[in-house]
């Protein structure tokens, strides 16, 4: 149980200081790959979620997709993708992108749908078109919920990218998997701690962003922000944001 010794071995290893197996390189690999999967996923999931939330059509679809996605084992999808499409980063990108979509889809739909109907009516009443109402009123009001969905998706992608080192993906998961395979515990635990630090760092970053994104009129009460769920019908794991805020300064 010699944590300091393990960490020293991990950090002092020359291979971890420079070259393709260096900590900086692995960290950048992990970040670049996660960002790519997240970005691709957001491109599809966020607009679709906004439209579903605004129109109120297809909400059952969102719930169903989120439920199915939660039940699918990531390791199974990743190994299957590599067997079918061949070893390589592109094969792993597909399941990662697919797994990042449901939390963002749910958050976008729930966030927009939760905008105060009176505020929406007022926006329509002063002559805003539907796209204007969606983009200028609903999206800002839903911003904290939206960001919470992106946060859930990011954490999911970072974790799955770690697991995907098993099928040959680079990134911090390499240390964990290679260390386990060669019975080199310092490498394993060093990699695991880096992954934990990365996940916590991303969480903190999003906590800050969510605080900044809350509309000024809704920023006053920290109590509502801390609430994660509204009741049994809501999904605490994928929509941990505050209830949609009242927008006071509508254009």
């Amino acid at each position, binding site marked *: *149980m010699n944590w300091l010794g393990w960490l020293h071995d991990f950090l002092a290893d020359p291979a971890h200081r420079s070259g393709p197996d260096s900590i900086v390189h692995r960290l950048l690999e992990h970040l670049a790959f996660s960002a790519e999967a997240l970005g691709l996923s957001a491109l599809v999931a966020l607009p679709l979620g906004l439209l579903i939330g605004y129109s109120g059509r297809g909400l059952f679809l969102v719930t169903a997709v989120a*439920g*199915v996605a*939660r*039940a*699918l*084992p*990531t*390791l*199974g*999808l990743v*190994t*299957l993708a*590599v*067997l*079918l*499409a*061949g070893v390589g980063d592109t094969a792993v990108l597909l399941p990662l992108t697919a797994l990042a979509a449901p939390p963002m889809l749910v958050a976008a739909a729930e966030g927009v749908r939760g905008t105060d109907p009176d505020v929406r009516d007022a926006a329509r009443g002063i002559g805003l078109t539907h796209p204007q109402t969606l983009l200028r009123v609903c999206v800002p009001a839903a911003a904290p919920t939206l960001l919470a969905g992106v946060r859930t998706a990011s*954490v999911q992608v*970072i*974790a799955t990218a*770690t*697991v995907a080192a*098993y*099928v040959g993906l680079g990134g911090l*998961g390499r240390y*964990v*998997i290679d260390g*386990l395979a060669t019975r080199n*515990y310092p490498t*394993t*635990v060093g*990699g*695991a*701690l880096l*992954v*934990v630090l990365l*996940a*916590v760092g*991303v*969480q903190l970053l999003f906590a800050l962003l969510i605080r900044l994104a809350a509309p000024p009129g809704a920023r006053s009460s920290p109590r509502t922000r*801390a*609430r*994660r*769920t*509204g*009741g*049994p*019908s*809501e*999904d*605490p*794991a994928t929509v*941990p944001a505050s209830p949609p805020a009242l927008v006071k300064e509508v254009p």
Partner: protein
Amino acid sequence: MLDGEPLVRWHWLGDHLGYLADLTADHAVIALVPVLLALLLAVPLGLACARFPRLYQPLAAVFNVVYALPSLAVFVVLIPYTGLATRQTVMVPLTCYALAVLLPTAVDGLRAVPEPVRQAATAMGYGPWRRLAAVELPASVPYLIGGLRVAAVSSISLAAVGALVGRGGLGYLFVDGFQRTFPTPILAGIALVALLALATDLLLVAARRVLAPWERGVAR
């Protein structure tokens, strides 16, 4: 990539029915016992948090962070304490993940009892314990089961990652299939994990109907 290997070799499934059943049973224990443990912890913790709101803020913050920790990293960090390829290495983190989901639902459920109802129970002569057992806990059942559904399904899919540290129930099928370039076990594993999750979810929905029959018209 597969060089003529069919996607599913049906006879493999037929030949390994007993093996698949054993793995499924092991998976159910590894994934669901932590959820039950988390429920046993969430109710008293939730009670404490509902009574002392100051306790809830820091606890919620801690569990928010815990929930975001990648499972593989946590399994690996626990290995020196719980051993390689033991059930505990997988079950301890899964308990924490489930608790992170269940604690907020328990607190919300206990807070959802309207104050007049609470006062009515007191006026009828209920002491704090009897009020808890007869009014507050039953009222929070729909919330708890909502949380249990999320926690159980996530736990079932997360447990498979345990295969990378030697104990993952059905997750072993993914490792096995990948090492042999043999997709049949992988597909069987995905299907069985999803089926186990579906069965658990349906069981919980049925439990809500029995334990909270007043919700029948309201709930989804």
